């Protein structure tokens, strides 16, 4: 089955399940049965199912479907959990401090999950088409390598041309550019402003360079482009990895608070 076909059936299943949940909740409420108990237990079970995805990742040797299948299940069940949560709370903000905290945790977990879903759907394509793909862990080392190469080119320009034009420009503009990562949000948004601004200055410098310097400056410009790609890779891959710093810890927190909430509900009902 093709990817589109799988998604089609997944959406159909999600819609049917959601419709069933809406109907059951409505019918239970009309008949004055304990709808919140049914949706609450279901929601807790669904969240535990979602957590199994993380456990599955830690146990890659078990023949329990592929990770991508688990990921798809995680996405659609996660979306269903948002509907269940809405039904459970009656689509309103809880009043009590404890339950409000639980709701905020759920919103943060599900919100970060949706952000993660969007990022994981959007970023890989951009990363592929932007330039050289690098491993996130290698980026610092590659940045250091680039900086050394540029510094060597700057020294070469001084030696060959007996001029400090490029060296002065390096000190003034390029050192900072190569020392740290630049324009995180510009890269996430797909905006080329930091690079465009620097290259404008490089072009403005061009009229003060002789032929040798121009050749060296061309090489430096290649590295400016490479650094921009590294910044882009760091920003986008950082985001791809960073959202899990919100999603996973808060999931555990939510499970703990939800367990206490369940106990309270059982105790007072």
């Amino acid at each position, binding site marked *: 089955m093709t990817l589109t076909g799988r998604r089609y059936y997944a959406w159909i299943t999600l819609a049917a399940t959601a419709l069933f949940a809406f109907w059951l909740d409505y019918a239970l409420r*009309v008949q004055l049965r304990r709808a919140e108990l049914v949706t609450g237990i279901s929601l807790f079970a669904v969240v535990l199912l979602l957590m199994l995805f993380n456990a599955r990742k830690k146990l890659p040797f078990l023949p329990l479907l592929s990770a991508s299948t688990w990921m798809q299940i995680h996405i659609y069940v996660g979306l269903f959990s948002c509907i269940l949560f809405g039904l459970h709370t009656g689509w309103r903000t809880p009043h009590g401090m404890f339950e409000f905290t639980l709701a905020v945790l759920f919103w943060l977990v599900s919100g970060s999950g949706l952000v993660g879903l969007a990022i994981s759907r959007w970023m890989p394509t951009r990363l592929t088409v932007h330039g050289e793909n690098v491993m996130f*862990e290698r980026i610092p080392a590659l940045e250091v390598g680039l900086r050394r190469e540029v510094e060597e080119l700057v020294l070469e320009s001084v030696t060959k041309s007996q001029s400090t034009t490029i060296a002065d420009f390096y000190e003034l503009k390029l050192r900072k550019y190569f020392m740290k990562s630049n324009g995180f949000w510009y890269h996430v948004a797909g905006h080329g402003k930091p690079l465009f601004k620097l290259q404008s200055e490089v072009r403005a410098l061009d009229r003060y360079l002789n032929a040798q310097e121009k050749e060296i400056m061309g090489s430096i410009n290649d590295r400016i482009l490479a650094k921009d790609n590294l910044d882009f890779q760091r920003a986008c891959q950082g985001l791809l990895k960073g959202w899990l710093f919100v999603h996973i810890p808060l999931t555990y927190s939510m499970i703990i608070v939800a367990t206490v909430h369940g106990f309270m509900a059982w105790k007072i009902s």
Partner: protein
Amino acid sequence: MMRWLQEFGFQKSSYERPNQKWVCGRARDGQCCLTGPDASGNCGATAECRPLRKGDRWHCSRSNAMGGACSEGPLPDGSCCRTIPRCTPNRSLRSWRGITVLLVVGATLGLLLVSMSLRRGANAFSPGELSFSHRSVGNKCSECHYGLEGRPAVWFTTSVKSPSAHDNSQLCLKCHNLSGTAMYPHSLAPERLQSLTQASMKKNGRGNPSAGIALASFVPSVAHVGGGEIACATCHKEHNGKAADLKKLTNNQCQGCHATQFASLSAGHPQFAGYPFERRTRIIFDHETHLLGHFNEATVSKMAPHSCMDCHEPDLRGGTMVLKSFASTCAACHDDQIKAKSAVKAGVPFIAIPRMDDRVLKGKYSIGEWPEDADQPITPFVKFLLSGDAELRNALNKIKGLDLSSLPSNDVEKLQAAQQVAWGIKSLIFDLSTLGQDELVRRINHSSGRTLSDYEKEGAVAFLNAEVIRGAFQSAFPNLQKEVVDYRKKTNAAPTQLVSSPEAPKAGPVKTARPEDWVSQGGWYSPDASFTLNYHPRGHSDRFLSAWMNLTVDGSKAIDSLSSEALFKELSASKGVGLCVKCHSIDDSPAKLVNWMGSRPDPVVHGFERFSHSAHLSLMDSRGCLTCHSMSLKDPRSKGTDDYASTFEPGKQDPSMFHSNFKVIDKNVCASCHQSGLVRDDCLLCHNYHIGKFKQIAPHASIFGALHAEVGKD
């Protein structure tokens, strides 16, 4: 052109392990060693190779990835000459994520434990602010929830068994008195509800439910599970803020349990049956004859009301239209009528001396001194008061219907009875004149078979005083004290002796009012030379008449029900004293009583329907109250068998059998406004859920306990 940074090849690419906890400290500089840190985060770097010994020489074994064998070669002792400087390994991104998880989990557990341990921690775990009605509960969870005493941490350690919603409902009922069947649907006993359901099904069928109800019908309703009891929290959802409406329910939720279902008031709601009048009026007032007849008479028209509001007004809650007072409604026409016929001329004879046959009542039947001119029958009051004594009761029964002034000389039994009655009357007068009002109350209690309340005593005694009694009977029985004392000793019954009436005083220059005129505004009096004690009612709302009618309306508890009924019959005669029963109807069910007041809502009674007249008074058109209350006029061909007045004919005392002056309210009158898009048409606008008689109780308060505590403090 972008500089390409990576070269890929088995000797060119380093092997990254992002899933391990630690990474080399020099990885940031691109000088990561191949050994890497161990699992505990210790640097594993030693040298770039471990030289190999071949024969007696050491050879460099550095990998090609690191540049192959070095030119310097191993040291003479076989160690590598190129040692790698040790680094401080860094945590991997994955490891930091794990630490974040631990920190967040720790913080969550810590916050929870702190919150649970605090004295006021329950506030944090409250699912929301209580409604305005329950604000007095505060943050005392255990007031409404079993097992939630003390700090939240204790909740986890108390009873493992969770209380059910039904258990918690018992705590609600500590303050909300909703009878013993509170938790059954509508607070009605199952048998009663079943009969109502069957009646509805018989009359209305299953109805035509809306799509919303039909959709929910696949799930059994709460009333059909768990033994039919419904916990309070099923409908009343708390912790939704101060302004939350605890009674909020949708129409579908109401109808989920109902056998007959329909879409709305305008679509499918059954036509009203017998609403609003479920019984005849308590005050007999024929609207038809008054509005179409009496009020048009020339003598009355000036006093006639101009609108319904002249006689009716909303009660304090605005729900029911109640009658205004007699003074502001009926008095204008009927006050004089009552006074004119309420014994102004003769009063109500309370004690009267009958003529006794002195020819035969002598010797062993002697009755002592007896007024020669006495000629009144024994009053029902006297018969009632004497009936408390068994002998006198028998005696009264024996002389029933006899002419006491002409007794059969040879009927010993009747002569004895007449003698007993004569002495009974004298004893009664003697006791009242010597022992006072308490004796009268004692005799009433004894005869009626119950103990009068203070209010009833005041009415029945009506300020009777000794002087009046003595004045009335002094001339009739000059030696009453001696005679009665001797008679009671059974030693000597004074011989019969007729006492002549004293001469009437001659009229003087000053005009003196006759006794009956003297008490024109009510009171006790004795007409000249009549040997009777009469009571003159003071007009409408006379306490004496109402007290005695209340006392005798139900003779079942009286020692002698016949004398009680006879007295009531006398007082309630259609042309009797005060004409009370001309307007005040008498019911025999559910209890025998005289309706002294018009219908007034009982604040503790909760019926199925409710209606606010106040909310509708400004909405009527030019027809006024007739906008909704259409008159049901008498059919001229019926010959008076189905009109309003026929309901109150003598002997008809069943309040549920009646003909109203007004037609049943047409449902469409309500539905013309109360429909979707116009005015609310939800079930709870017009219907109560809890049905029954619910006395209000003070929550959390025992006055006696509090008082004792206060006294204890002092």
